[in-house]
């Protein structure tokens, strides 16, 4: 069991006003799944992703990751988990400006406790995996939006994480680039990676194998995708 959540609650306290965002969620995710967390804005899906991705802590409830209770980890331990276990892909790419594609992909290794002897070779590998082996020395302002998101995926892959979290990864992309990104995520899942996709679009969510539907801080539906969409990108995937 990769992720096991029981009675997960999240309250925000702001000037003594308590806002309840998550009202007690329970579910589990197995290794190798492709799960889409879907819901309208304000449903709590981003908060859930932040907690699952160790960027935030639950107020109540239990969160087990790879069989380990992570609710009591220190900030630095959470940072180490983010570094080694999680690969994030954001809607707005979040690449460093004035920095080469290769350096961007290598960035997580800077914070890794493991020694990396072949950092450049490893970065080249993951960039080739997303079809950007020819863009290594380019600066991030010299490539297209779709390419930026693929660099971000390569960056997420470099530490060989247990889970890839993709938060609205196609939100800032045209449909062709969006298709490419979804095709890569599906290919990675086919290769054994666990992918958790956060989106508000039904169309995008249907690329996953399972949809966790959220509304007002609660899971309203947890279902298998019967007619899964397959993103085809002949240019990219080998």
């Amino acid at each position, binding site marked *: 069991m990769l992720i096991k959540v029981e009675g997960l609650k999240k309250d925000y306290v702001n000037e003594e006003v308590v806002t309840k965002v998550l009202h007690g969620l329970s579910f589990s995710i197995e290794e190798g799944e492709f799960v889409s967390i879907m819901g309208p804005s304000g449903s709590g899906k981003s908060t859930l992703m*932040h907690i699952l*991705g160790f*960027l*935030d802590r639950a107020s109540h409830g239990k969160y087990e990751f790879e069989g380990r209770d992570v609710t009591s980890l220190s*900030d*630095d331990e959470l*940072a*180490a988990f*983010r*570094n*080694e276990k999680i690969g*994030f892909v*954001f809607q707005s790419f*979040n690449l*460093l400006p*004035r*920095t080469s594609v290769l350096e961007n992909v290598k*960035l*997580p290794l*800077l*914070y*890794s406790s493991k020694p990396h002897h072949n950092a450049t070779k490893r970065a080249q590998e993951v960039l080739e995996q997303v079809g950007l082996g020819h863009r290594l020395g380019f600066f991030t302002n010299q490539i297209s939006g779709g390419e930026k998101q693929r660099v971000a995926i390569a*960056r997420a892959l470099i*530490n060989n994480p247990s889970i890839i979290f993709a938060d609205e990864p196609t939100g800032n992309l045209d449909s062709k680039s969006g298709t490419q990104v979804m095709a890569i995520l599906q290919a990675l899942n086919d290769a054994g990676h666990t992918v958790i996709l956060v989106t508000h679009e039904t169309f995008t969510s249907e690329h996953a194998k399972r949809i966790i539907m959220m509304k007002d801080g609660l899971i309203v539906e947890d279902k298998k995708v019967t007619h899964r969409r397959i993103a085809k990108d002949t240019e990219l995937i080998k």
Partner: protein
Amino acid sequence: MIKGAFSALNASRRRSILTMLGIIIGVAAVIIIMAIGSGAQALILSQFETFGSNLIGVLPGKSEQNGPPAAVFGVTITTLTLDDAIALGQKNNVPHAIAVEPVSQGAGTATWRSESYDTTFFGTSADYIEVEGGELESGRFFSADEVDSTARVVVLGSTVKTELFGQSDAVGQNIRLKNTVLTVIGVMKERGTVAFQNYDDQVILPITTLQKLILGVNHLGFLRVKVDDGANIEQTMIDVTETLRERHGIKDSSGLSDDFTIQSSRDAIETLTTVTSGLSFFLAAMAALSLLVGGIGIMNIMLIRVVERTREIGLRQALGARRFDIMSQFLTEATAITLSGGIIGIVIGELMSVLITLVAQQMGYDWPFSFSLVAIIVAVSVSVAVGLIFGLYPAAKASKLDPIEALRYE
């Protein structure tokens, strides 16, 4: 990480350099202070070494302990005479005096044939070489007998010799000082400026000859007493004071009614050292102020950078950066700014020090160029310290950002 810090600076080069200015000025000031301090110190000491430190000077007129002599104010004081000098030379009055040099000075034109040159007339006794030092290039110095007999002889400083005679031999020639004809009996070796006195641009003649035949005066400009041993300076100052009070009929032993001022060359060294260390202190205060202002500038710019790069900080946190990593990143950047500023400051400071040295040497002072490794180590450590101290608050602020809010920051 260090590479990253420098490339981040390079990205906003103009702002970084402006930010560095305070550090550059402060560090350059530190370098200059240390160079000037040690240069001036070496100059003063070397001056008094060649000059002899066992000297006591007596000036006419009263002056405060550390104040300027009365003559500085343009007042001619006639209280000190040649007879005073003779009395001080007697063993029963001042037992530790090995030489007494009365000095009277004037200025005027020295003429040889059609050549003429404006210079200083330095009237003194045969003890001149003993007290002042210096060597003869050719000929001889005048004797005590020639001083007593108001002999019409003169010894030329090297500048005067060259100006009047060029390469030709001066000894045995007659020159005129104002309207008095004197025979050149010697030429001094070139000596340069020692203790703020140019030894080459003067003619030296018996004090009697200068007083009676040329200036028509009877008083001394000052006199110098050479003491046999440094340990006897205090005692000799007392002996000189008592002898002069007795001769001048001064009964008051408090010193308030004295019509002369007595100072040892050691006092002079101390006075000069006080002046230079006061100057150094002032410059050091300026440097400290400049570094403080520079440091505040660094803090300001680093706070701006933290805000500008909030999203980047959030991203780095998401990728696994711990608080410590973020903190060290911004501390490294702040230190990279101050260290770069420090290195530029060191270069500018050293260049200024070389310039000051060259100007001082051009003016004839024996001012050594001192390249101080200590100064550079101090400058580098100070600039690193400023970066660490003033970078701490912005770096701490950056490290405390909440990753989720930082990632959402627009």
